[in-house]
């Protein structure tokens, strides 16, 4: 119930749009998560340009790049005669410029896991793919419901979810706090976030904080596709100094490579499944 309400709230939040409601034919996406969503709901052929950071799906490789969050190339976007620009809610200058050029845009903000399905639905409505969007979003909702059910009765390990760290050392560790899609995915996958009480998306985790919170599992996310086992063994040494941490003592340190874990797009279900597999390998 709570979850549904959140979805609706997130959908309302992301539906803040400007301009016409005519289904867009020439879409420019500056947000990788939204690019993936547009392709996943069957409108990939209408995408004419993407951001510098877009990698998925493979079809985007040949599309022109028009900047990203900090450096959108507004001239090119206008020259391409886009009729819908998918952008971040913080790109206020770009919004003003697009308004002046009478180009409609769709504004996106990160809003946890509920925001992912909410955004898919809102985006589907915006580009006239309601049915496909509803099917995709409902599929993700079902998948998470099943995952939550599957892990509900399991012993949930206290988990540290690291998304950035200096290689070969324990410096500048950034981990998921109690807010955001990664935290939601971890809890659905049957883990307890050791920083759930810190209402931030990102927490700088000092070694003292990690020793004090004593995680039973450490999950490290990597956006690249490095073979996880080789990487794990090589990096394990860095963690060994924190010998009292149960995850280190019991060798429960895992690297999870892949973009589905760092992009809040249509593949969040796979990401959460990958987390579940290492948290509860026998279930």
């Amino acid at each position, binding site marked *: 119930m709570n979850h549904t309400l959140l979805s609706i709230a997130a959908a309302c939040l992301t539906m803040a749009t400007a301009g016409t409601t005519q289904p867009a034919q020439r879409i420019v996406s500056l947000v990788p998560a939204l690019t993936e969503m547009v392709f996943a709901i069957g409108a990939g052929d209408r995408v004419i340009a993407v951001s510098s950071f877009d990698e998925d799906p493979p079809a985007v490789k040949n599309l022109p790049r028009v900047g990203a969050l900090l450096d959108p190339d507004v001239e090119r976007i206008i020259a391409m005669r886009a009729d819908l620009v998918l952008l971040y809610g913080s790109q206020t200058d770009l919004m003003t410029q697009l308004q002046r050029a009478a180009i409609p845009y769709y504004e996106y903000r990160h809003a946890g896991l509920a925001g992912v399905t909410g955004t898919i639905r809102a985006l589907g409505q915006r580009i006239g793919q309601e049915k496909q969007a509803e099917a995709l979003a409902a599929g993700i909702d079902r998948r998470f419901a099943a995952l939550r059910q599957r892990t509900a009765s399991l012993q949930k390990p206290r988990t540290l979810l690291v998304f950035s760290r*200096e290689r070969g*050392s324990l*410096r500048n560790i950034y981990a998921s706090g109690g807010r955001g899609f990664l935290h939601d995915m971890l809890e659905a996958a049957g883990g307890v976030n050791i920083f759930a009480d810190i209402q931030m998306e990102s927490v700088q985790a000092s*070694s003292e*904080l990690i020793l004090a919170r004593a995680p039973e599992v450490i999950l490290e996310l990597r956006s690249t596709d490095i073979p996880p086992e080789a990487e794990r063994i090589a990096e394990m040494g860095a963690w060994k100094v924190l010998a*009292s941490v149960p995850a280190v003592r019991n060798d429960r340190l895992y690297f999870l490579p892949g973009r589905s874990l760092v992009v809040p797009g249509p593949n969040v279900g796979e990401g959460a499944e990958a987390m579940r597999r290492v948290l509860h390998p026998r279930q």
Partner: protein
Amino acid sequence: MNVRQRLAVVVPGFGGVTALVLLIAPTLGSTPISLSNVFDTSIPWADNVDAQIFFVARLPRVLAGALVGSALAAAGVVLQALLRNPLATPFTLGVSASAALGAMLAIAFDLDVGILGAAAVPVASFVGSLVGTAMVYLLATRVNKALSTNVLLLAGVTLNTFFSALITFVQYLIDFADWYRTARWLLGNLDVSSFNPILASMPLVGVSLAMVALLPRALNLLTLGEDVAAARGVDVGRAQRIAFLSASFATGAAISLAGPIGFIGVVVPHLVRLLVGSDHRVVLPASILFGATFLVICDLIARTVMAPIELPVGIVTALVGGPVFIWLLVRKA
């Protein structure tokens, strides 16, 4: 009081405060620990969380703070005297920006192996500082055989801008996750989590401080002008070279250990001068001790004031140092 008498008061005074702070700081933090557990050898190391918090998380951090604080404070004193400019900081002459560029490149290219077991980012940052030092030095000695402080200042500031532009360029090209790491590195961080990086930096800071120890008398005279110093028998060129190189090495070592932590190098020397006068024979040892104390206290605040969240220590150095400095300045005036 002559210099010897003043030193006999100042060094034990400042040294005592430093020792006290170094003793107390590791006992305080975001997590309460039991000191009797920390030193209880009957508890196996792997089970002794208190000992690990003390020896792995806090002690290296306090020692790193002391080392970096003294290196940056010493570099600040030396450069302010060398350039005869009260606004000179360890970050004025391009060495810090080249050190930061080295770190940025290591992050951008995801270098995962360092040298002799040290992590890649500090090694790359130190190499960067050496490249910057060499470039500024060669430029400043090229015009005439002696080191020209005017050229030194102009070349240093220009290279600083140049390297800063390269840093921005690298940040512009890398992906968002790496951009976040670089931005965070530039805020500075003393959580080194082991003694190895400290041991790696110590010889260099030691050599720099030993070089600085040759300088106090020359710096006193150089602040009056190069001609005055030469007339009083100072080998000006040699003193300037030692001053520049010692300050650059100290800065490079400090930045590679902890990132560019601002404000120490400018505020500590001035605070110390306000307290003990302007004779470098007293200012230098006092600044080295006070720099260590100041940074350790700032880091203690950074890691406890908003616990469990930690503040970047550079924010605290400026927030604490600024008002204290202004208060002293107004009081003195």
